[in-house]
């Protein structure tokens, strides 16, 4: 994890340039292809959403910074296909063997797309540790915001919130833990909370005393106060 993707609070990015409400969904045809190829490859079942997020975050900072959005997707997909042994480097160079792949029978078909998209991939699970915190309780987000299991691993605790004091707003239930799931270490579900932080607990110069930021944080990201 380079954290190049973890840009919440970063300075220097300039204005946000709003787009027209009726702008095309895909600005370029290849954006649509990149999205569709990525979703179709996900259906092969060789990785999960956390693995694919981690693959994008692991692009070298130089590539992550230069690549446009869908270029990150397609590049991370190529890396993931090789890493998971679906394709070889020779395949990517067009020098691999011809013929159908052993996983071809799992390929998403046109008639199964609607069902697959409608089913989605719920992250809520039963079991796991009992909730340790309740609504209204003061908590602190763990510091540093690193994966506790894997050096340099994936986490969904943004660095801007690490060490900050917040208040539990609600319990979302027990959800798959990305820090484990991204690395093939199992779903290890944990209670997931919406935690509200006063902007003044996060930023030296908040815009307004009443402003807040809410993050969804897993139980092991939090310490009692």
């Amino acid at each position, binding site marked *: 994890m380079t954290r190049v993707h973890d840009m919440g609070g970063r300075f220097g990015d300039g204005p946000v340039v709003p787009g027209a409400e009726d702008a095309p969904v895909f600005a370029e045809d290849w954006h649509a292809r990149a999205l569709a190829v990525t979703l179709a490859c996900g259906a092969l079942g060789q990785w999960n959403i956390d693995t694919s997020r981690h693959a994008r975050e692991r692009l070298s900072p130089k590539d992550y910074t230069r690549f446009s959005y869908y270029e990150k997707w397609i590049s991370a997909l190529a890396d993931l296909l090789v890493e998971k042994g679906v394709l070889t480097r020779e395949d990517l160079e067009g020098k691999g063997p011809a013929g159908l792949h052993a996983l071809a029978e799992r390929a998403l078909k046109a008639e199964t797309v609607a069902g697959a998209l409608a089913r989605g991939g719920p992250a809520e699970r039963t079991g796991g540790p009992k909730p340790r915190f309740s609504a209204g309780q003061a908590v602190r987000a763990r510091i540093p915001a690193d994966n506790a299991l894997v050096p340099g691993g994936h986490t969904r605790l943004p660095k801007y919130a690490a060490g900050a004091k917040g208040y539990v707003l609600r319990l979302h239930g027990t959800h798959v833990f990305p820090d484990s799931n991204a690395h093939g270490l199992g779903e290890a579900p944990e209670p997931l909370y*919406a935690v509200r932080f006063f902007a003044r607990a996060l930023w030296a110069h908040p815009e307004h005393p009443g402003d807040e930021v809410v993050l969804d944080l897993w139980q092991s990201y939090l310490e009692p106060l």
Partner: protein
Amino acid sequence: MPHDHPDSPHALLPPDPALRVKALETILTEKGLIDPAALEEIIDTYQNRIGPQNGARVVARAWSDPEFKAALLADADPVLAELGYYGRQGEHMVVVENTPQRHNMVVCTLCSCYPWPLLGIPPGWYKSDAYRARAVREPRKVLADFGVTLPGDCAVRVWDSTAEVRYLVLPLRPEGTEGLGEEELAALVTRDSMIGTGQPKVPA
């Protein structure tokens, strides 16, 4: 290839992004790992069938029907599933209501999480570095980029989608819409008003 990190497999693909996708698509198709007809179906779904019109219908109904609104705010998933608005990237929905005292706004600072079944594929600016970096630290300046100004007594609550929970903002119903039906109301609901970077349209 100087464009890429040289050790990465993706550096073996052509540097031009359109060709890069094409190359990967060709390899995968030849091996039977992806079906071109399935790709067309995915693209058609998100280009033509699923988009912010879904969310707008939900908002218009919440504005019109207090019981529906109460159920939506209490536990959105069963309410939305019944309307058929369930699926990928919308498995765990929470609807957050704007009030005169609180304006809600949604971002994903880590990637681009967004409620696909209700709003479709996110617009480019939502995925931009500038929005991801700034929305949490200076939401009011970001709102100003969108031409939105809030009264001084209105607090901003920014939701950073760090997990699989997706958020939809229920904007304030515009004044002067008392006599309007759900369809007319839905026409006032903009995508940006459901992300929190805009306000609904005011009836002409």
